[in-house]
Structures are given as structure tokens and as C-alpha cells.
């Protein structure tokens, strides 16, 4: 595999998903203002779907593209995390409407971000195995089911499922609130 320049192996795949994410987010939030129900609903369905896919599953595109363009493991991981991080940051900034900067920073630890992170770990594992599988098909000597990506899939999926199954996310939300009260204080 030829190691392409940083723009092609790192920035472009990230940027493509970023573009889909930001355009769909913008259009989604404009759709309801159009005032024509059929257009609103159609546009919201399309952009909502794209937004969800780009934030949650963008890694499944970014990781393989970066892989085949010669990005290192560190670069692939970083590239996979950038867009979800930006999304989480946008959500955090939303909180500044009511709360302090430090309180909005704590919001990075909210259950949804944790959940998303676990999902990303699993996806990176899946993408890694997929890439290795393609390489092997091309005749390269690689181990497809390596312990690293397999562990990522198992741990990531296990956490995604158990965190949700554990009280539909309510229990982890309770821990998040307890942490908030410990750090920022409460009267009890």
C-alpha cells in the first residue's frame, strides 16, 4: 500500500463525512421553516437519516479509506473520532445557553457520548477486519482475525449493548448526574 499524502489519507475522508454531517444538519434544521409539510417531512427524513449515519457510522467509511491510503493506526483512530467529537462539541456548546463553560465540558461524559465512543471502537474493529480481509484477498499476507480488532469489536459491542440494556441507559445517566453533583456541588 502506498502511503498517500496527509490530505488524501487523513483529511479528505474526514472532510467528506464532515460535509455530509454539516449539510444534513443545516438542511434538517431549515426543513421545518419551509412551511410546506410534504417538503419538510421528506427533507427531514433524508437529512435526518444522513445526519444520523454520518455521526454514528461515519467511521465505517473513514477508517477503510484512510487504511487503504496508507494512514497509520493512530491516524485512522484519530480520523474516525474527529467528526463524532465535533458533533459532541456542538452538543456541549448548546449547553452554554444555560450553564458555565466547565459544566458544558463535563457534558462530554454524558451517556450518549460514552455510548457513541463504544460504538466507534467496535466499528473501528469491524473496519480493520474488513480492510485486512480485502488485503488478504489481494494476496497479501495479513492476519484477518487479529486479537486487536477482535477485542475492539467484542469490548465495543459489549459496552454498547450492556450500557443500553442496563436500564435503557438510565442507570449510566444516574452515574453521570452523581458525578456532576460531586464535581460542581449540590446541597446533598
Amino acid at each position, binding site marked *: 500500500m502506498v502511503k498517500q499524502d496527509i490530505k488524501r489519507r487523513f483529511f479528505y475522508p474526514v472532510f467528506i463525512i464532515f460535509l455530509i454531517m454539516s449539510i444534513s444538519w443545516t438542511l434538517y434544521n431549515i426543513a421545518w421553516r419551509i412551511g410546506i409539510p410534504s417538503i419538510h417531512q421528506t427533507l427531514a427524513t433524508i437529512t*435526518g437519516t444522513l445526519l444520523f449515519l454520518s455521526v454514528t457510522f461515519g467511521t465505517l467509511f473513514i477508517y477503510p479509506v484512510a487504511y487503504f491510503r496508507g494512514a497509520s493506526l493512530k491516524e485512522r483512530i484519530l480520523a474516525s473520532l474527529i467528526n463524532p467529537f465535533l458533533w459532541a462539541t456542538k452538543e456541549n456548546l448548546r449547553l452554554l445557553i*444555560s450553564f458555565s463553560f466547565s459544566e458544558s465540558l463535563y457534558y462530554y461524559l454524558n*451517556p450518549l457520548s460514552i455510548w457513541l465512543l463504544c460504538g466507534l471502537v467496535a466499528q473501528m474493529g469491524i473496519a480493520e477486519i474488513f480492510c485486512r480481509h480485502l488485503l488478504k484477498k489481494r494476496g497479501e499476507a495479513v492476519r484477518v482475525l487479529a486479537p486487536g480488532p477482535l477485542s475492539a469489536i467484542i469490548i465495543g459491542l459489549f459496552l454498547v449493548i450492556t450500557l443500553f440494556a442496563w436500564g435503557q*441507559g*438510565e442507570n449510566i445517566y444516574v452515574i453521570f*448526574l452523581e458525578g456532576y453533583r460531586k464535581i460542581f456541588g*449540590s*446541597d446533598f
Partner: protein
Amino acid sequence: MDNKNNDIFSKSIDRRHMIKLMGSTAAVGLAWLASPAMAKNLIPKGDKPNIIFILCDNVQYDDFGFMNHPFIQTPGVDSLARDGIVFDNAFIPTSLCSPSRASILTGAYAHNHGVKHNHTPWTGKKTTFMEYIKGAGYDTAFIGKWHMPGRGLPAIPSIDLFVSYTYREGQGSYMNCPLIVNGKHTPPGKKYLTEELTDRAIEFMEKNRRNADGPQKPFCLYLSHRAAHPPFVPPKDIRGMYADKKVALPGEVDSWFSKTNGNVFQGIMMGSYENQYRKYCEVITAMDRQIQRFLDKIDEMGLRNNTIIIFAADNGMMWGEHRCHGIRRPYEEVIRVPLIVRSPWTAKMAGEHRKQMALNIDVAPTILDIAGVHIPADMDGESLLPILRDRDAPGRKACLLEFWKYYPENTPSYVGVRTMTHKYVEYEKTLKPQIFDLVNDPREQNNLYGTQSGDKLLPELKTMMEALMQGK
């Protein structure tokens, strides 16, 4: 002693009450008989009615069959509305669970009882109506969701039976919720919480009836359901009941709305927005089924003619209106709550509606008034009995709206006033103040703040708000 002696409409009224009734009837003349004011005398002195307060959680005021909802089935609550009196303008001043619950118990605004949001603890410094009513000779029970912040449940000795939970920040869970019964951790008897709480309430009433050594004691029962708080988990046999129903969401939202703008944290993560709404309706129907069972039991036990039932919600609920989900915001869908009072002494007025403004802080003084207990001066609320008796009785002109920001919910603190015709809200920061003409713009789509008509309204609304803040 049997409770039917209280019933003017029952054929089995006893001689003492017949004489009393005839005496009062003769004194005021036959014409007065048709007047609603008659209701005042229908609770004979010395006899105290049983009082039941049923609270549901985060239910929009019109999500009931009697409010012409397109598909929800709520025959139990519908029967309360049919046989009781419905308050069309019932509101909560603070649109968040814990403050609202504290207001119901203490009859005080949140700035007075101190539970400003779900992180500020219940101090117990304000006396609850349950404590006052115990002093008036009532057996008392609090069964269900307490959900006031603090370490564990408070010790309130005047509550004879205290069944609640602290699980998941006091929110509990629909399935297998561990209970605390009079301070003791207790496994649930039934899998579904709403059913378990109903069982406990029935058991309490039966026990109260069995303790008939000497004069029968009246009871006051506070039955507080978790339904319909998210995440919505209906029981198995109701699950999917509304799966084929068409949900008409407000025009400003769409199927993806539950996953955007932070709404995913409102317990509506999975499925489309319409699907979540259907589940919410199923949870309400599940609660209603238990309410129906409970009402049937009251009839079966012969308690109906001496039992007053008040039904309310701690908050309303937004389902996409104003592109918002949940509670907290001062919009009508949140601050307006269902409030129904069914009592034997207003049976002639069954099905009537009252237009006067009623608040959750009125529940405590109303219950004390019913029980013949002096209403303490530190209660901000007012008894609703005069309005129940007389549809033309004067009501309050306005109520205070107050909210303190609550992490991590993204609503700034605000203060406002809601009159019978207008609403004014000032936010702590970021958001522009709002003035709505509720008569001509009931959906609150047109903010008049900064407009000519808004400028005209502003001084009076501000004066009213400030007066309410000062307790005037």
C-alpha cells in the same frame, strides 16, 4: 360506621342526617336547593370524607379520552371527568418534577419550599398537607413516586404508610422496581410498578376499613404513579396496542426529532418520534387500567359516597410543540395539567368544567379545607372548594411561573406570569423575553415582545409578575 351516611343521593341516608338536611333545606328555601352552593353543607359536620389524590407524571393535559384524543383509551380517568368536575385552566408554576411535587405537598411556590430543581434537596422544613391532615384524625398513606432530591426518603412520622423508591434518582422503573416500605427495602410483589402501587393503595384502604374498633377513621391516600415518565415501558399485554394508530405530530417536527437537539436524553432514544409517542400513550393506558381497577374497588368497598378523588399531573409534556420535547419550558403544553375533582357532594354538577385558574399549590389547601383543617398562612395556594361549589366564584387573575436551570437540561432560568389571557416570560440569559396573547394565539407562535402591542402589555404584566414574586 358506614360511609354512606354522607350521601345525599343515597336512599340509605340515616335519620340524623335526614333531619339535619331537612333543617337546613327549610332554612334556606326550596329554591336554594338547585344552587351549587348547597354542596357546602353536604359534608355533615363531624364526618370527614376520605381523600384520595392520584398523581401522574409528565402527561399532556389533553392526552385522555375525555379530551377527545384521537385514539388513546382512558376509561378510568374519563369516568372521573364524567362524574367529577374538570378544571380547564390548571397550571403548574414550576415545570419540573421535584419542584412541582414539593408544591403539591406543601401548597407553596418553589421559591418558598426550596426544591428549585431536581438537584436541590427536600429539607422537610415546610410542613406537608399529609402532616396537617394526620393531626385531624386521618389515616395517611403516601404510595408511589416521591422523587424529591436528597439522600434516601425523608422520615415523615405522620405518614402511616410510606411506600416509595429511591431507585434511579427516585424515578424508579416500570418493571421490577425495588420499593422502600416505611423505611424498609422491600422487593416488589408485582412486576409492573403501576399495578404494584395500585395493589398497595387497595391494601391500605382495606386495612383502614378493617380497623373499625370504635369510630371509623377517615383516610387520606396520596397515590403517585411513575406513568408516563420516560423511558416508556408498557406492560406486555398493552405493548403495541397503538402500533397501527396514526400519530399527528405538530407541524414543526418530524420522525427524527427524538434524536436531535438534545432530545435523545429525554428517554426517547430508540425508534421514531411517532413510535415513542405511541409507547407513551400505551403507558398512560396501562396506568388508566389500574386507575379503573382502583375506582372499581372503591365502589365495591362502598366508599364512593364518602370519598373525594383528585386527579392531577406533576407536569404537562411537549411532544414537539415549539420544536421542544419534554418539560421545563413555560409553554402551555408543559404548564397546563389535568385536574379533576370527583366528590359525592358535587355529584349534581358531574361533568361540569371550571374555567377559573387552579394551580398545583392549591391542592394542599383544598385537601385541608375538605378535611376541615385550618389552612396555614404560609401556604401560597388557595382552596378550590369555593370554585367547586360555585362555577361563578371568582378565581385568581394570574400565577407566577418560575424555573431554575437544571443540569443537564438546556433551559435557562426564567420567571414569568400567566394571566387568563396573556403570558410573559423573562429568561436569565440568552433567550429573548416572550409575551403571548393566549386568546388569539393559543399555540404561542407569535412572540409579541418588542412589538407595539407587546410594549403596551409589558408594564402591566411586569407589575403583576413582580407582585406575585413578592407574595402579593
